């Protein structure tokens, strides 16, 4: 038996390699006497993220495919990777707030964040179903552990356990789907599956159609699409606040990258058959997410439901399935990363060792007591609601115009209606920040940690920048539409 050694091109996995090395160093540091030197740990984490950023940007000029069709670091992957790496970088900085510093074992924590990022990046560049699976599991297992970082708090452990059980369940669906697709097509490479669909059609064999359905259910769990969203509120509420932001933004970006690639490369030729299903899912997700968010008083829970709604908006672009889809999904994911991680970031910046202000009533008057944090939160809320001139507005605009261009005018209208519902609960936070007197005794808010301030500042600038000059960003992303 002769074996063909596959092409090994480390450039295709350069960013992941850099982060893995960083994470391994962090794990080793956690064993020695440097485990408490925050500066060193931060330097290692940010350093490997910076190298990963550089390698990702370098890949824009020279897209590569390697390892016998397992990964392709093409422009599409680069777009999503930028969102993922931004989410990770902001999370690393935001985790230095007062509350999280009081209990986190920083070296292990940063190591896990970087490992989760590795999984996410692999999802963005995976071109074979095994690779998608391995990436998905790497990111999920890291996130289960990250969700339970506050070991002394029951809600954090509950979040970890719930996330783990439902995540394992979803993985089962996903893996079963992969197995059935492999059985029907004899391949795991997305492009070869696409060739199979081209000749046999998607209903060519029941085995294949059922496999794709199971795959979609698995993804539905991971990106919290209605009706697979039940775990989201409890998990986001119980997890440490910076982790919730990372979970929402990073895993959403990664899973959507893989989903778009699977839909267009593997199932592509007959995508029309599936749009009716995705159409319904998108509408359900937008409305259920937004309507349930309205009644939440806990801001973390509200943001969890809002994250469900945002998954719905992104699905709208996938239903459109035209030349605007890829670029508008990437734009949305980038915007969502900054505004969502930012919003969770402000909450964590307000958390002191003995008090976590998570209820919207507790935010009364914060706009005057902590003007900068209040302003940042207001901007994140406006952006999440989709108010111009923030990036959130442009993101929704691109997504809905993709739907209109593809002729899904009703879907776009429903999307706008759902977005209008969301304005209520986002602006409610702003109202509390600025127009309500704090009830009872004044809270002693913690001092703003410089690293947290920097991260929030960057997020605000990114949102305003992408909102004011969306054209130039979009112009770049248009070129990302081409998949390798």
């Amino acid at each position, binding site marked *: *038996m*002769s*074996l063909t*050694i596959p092409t090994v091109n480390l450039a295709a996995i350069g960013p992941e390699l850099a982060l893995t090395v960083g994470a*391994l160093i962090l*794990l*080793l540091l*956690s*064993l020695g006497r440097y485990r408490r030197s925050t500066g060193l740990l931060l330097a290692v984490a940010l350093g490997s993220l910076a190298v990963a950023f550089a390698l990702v940007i370098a890949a824009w000029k020279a897209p590569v495919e390697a390892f016998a069709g397992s990964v392709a670091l093409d422009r599409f992957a680069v777009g999503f990777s930028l969102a993922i790496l931004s989410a990770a970088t902001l999370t690393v900085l935001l985790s230095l707030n007062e509350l999280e510093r009081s209990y986190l074992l920083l070296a292990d924590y940063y190591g896990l964040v970087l490992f989760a990022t590795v999984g996410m990046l692999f999802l963005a560049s995976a071109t074979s179903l095994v690779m998608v699976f391995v990436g998905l599991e790497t990111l999920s297992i890291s996130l289960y552990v990250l969700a339970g970082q506050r070991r002394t708090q029951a809600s954090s452990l509950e979040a970890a356990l719930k996330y783990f059980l439902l995540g394992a369940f979803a993985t089962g669906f996903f893996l079963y789907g992969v197995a059935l697709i492999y059985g029907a097509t004899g391949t795991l490479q997305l492009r070869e599956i696409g060739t199979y669909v081209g000749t046999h059609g998607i209903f060519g064999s029941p085995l294949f159609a059922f496999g794709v359905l199971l795959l979609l259910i698995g993804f539905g769990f991971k990106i919290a699409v209605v009706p697979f969203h039940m775990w989201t509120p409890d998990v986001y509420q119980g997890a440490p606040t910076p982790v919730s932001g990372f979970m929402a933004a990073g895993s959403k970006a990664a899973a959507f990258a893989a989903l778009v690639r699977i839909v267009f490369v593997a199932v592509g030729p007959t995508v029309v058959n599936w749009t009716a299903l995705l159409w319904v899912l998108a509408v359900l997700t937008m409305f259920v997410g937004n309507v349930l968010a309205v009644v939440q008083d806990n801001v973390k829970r509200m943001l969890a439901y809002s994250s469900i709604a945002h998954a719905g908006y992104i699905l709208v672009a996938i239903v459109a399935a035209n030349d605007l889809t890829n670029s508008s999904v990437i734009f949305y994911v980038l915007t969502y990363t900054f505004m969502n991680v930012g919003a969770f970031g402000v909450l964590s910046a307000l958390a002191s060792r003995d008090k976590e202000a998570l209820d919207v009533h507790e935010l009364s008057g914060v706009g005057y007591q902590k003007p900068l944090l209040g302003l940042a939160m207001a901007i994140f809320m406006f952006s999440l609601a989709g108010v111009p001139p923030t990036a959130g507005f442009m993101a929704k605009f691109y997504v809905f115009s993709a739907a209109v261009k593809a002729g899904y005018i009703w879907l776009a209208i429903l999307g706008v209606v759902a977005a209008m519902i969301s304005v209520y609960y986002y602006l409610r936070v702003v109202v509390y920040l600025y127009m309500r007197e704090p009830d009872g005794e004044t809270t002693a808010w913690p001092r703003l940690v410089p690293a947290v301030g920097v991260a929030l500042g960057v997020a605000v600038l990114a949102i305003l920048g992408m909102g004011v000059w969306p054209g130039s960003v979009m112009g770049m992303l248009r070129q990302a539409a081409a998949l390798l």
Partner: protein
Amino acid sequence: MNDFTPVLLMFLFVAFLVLFMLGLSLLLGPKKKSAVKGEPFETGMVPFELPGDRFSIRFYVIALLFIVFDVELVFLFPWAAVFRQLGWFGFAEMLVFIVILALGLIYAWKKGALEWE
């Protein structure tokens, strides 16, 4: 029939042997029942609590680590079947694999997961 036929035969033989020996002692052994014989025996003392106390979570850590390294072993087994054909490429990939998992072992060791605290 395939390579597993001997395995099947051995299973059948073992099953037969076990049943045969049990049956033999059942047939030939003397049987005298008394109340004292039914009591649990603990170095001559009357036991004061039921066996089957709560297990310590320490066992769990050990079992968990065992599974992870067991899965590692699963990968080594097929590698051994083809490593000649793979040459240095195969050596390199297994080296990376082992080194990363060795780091895992060092991590577990230094964190004290292998100690009976």
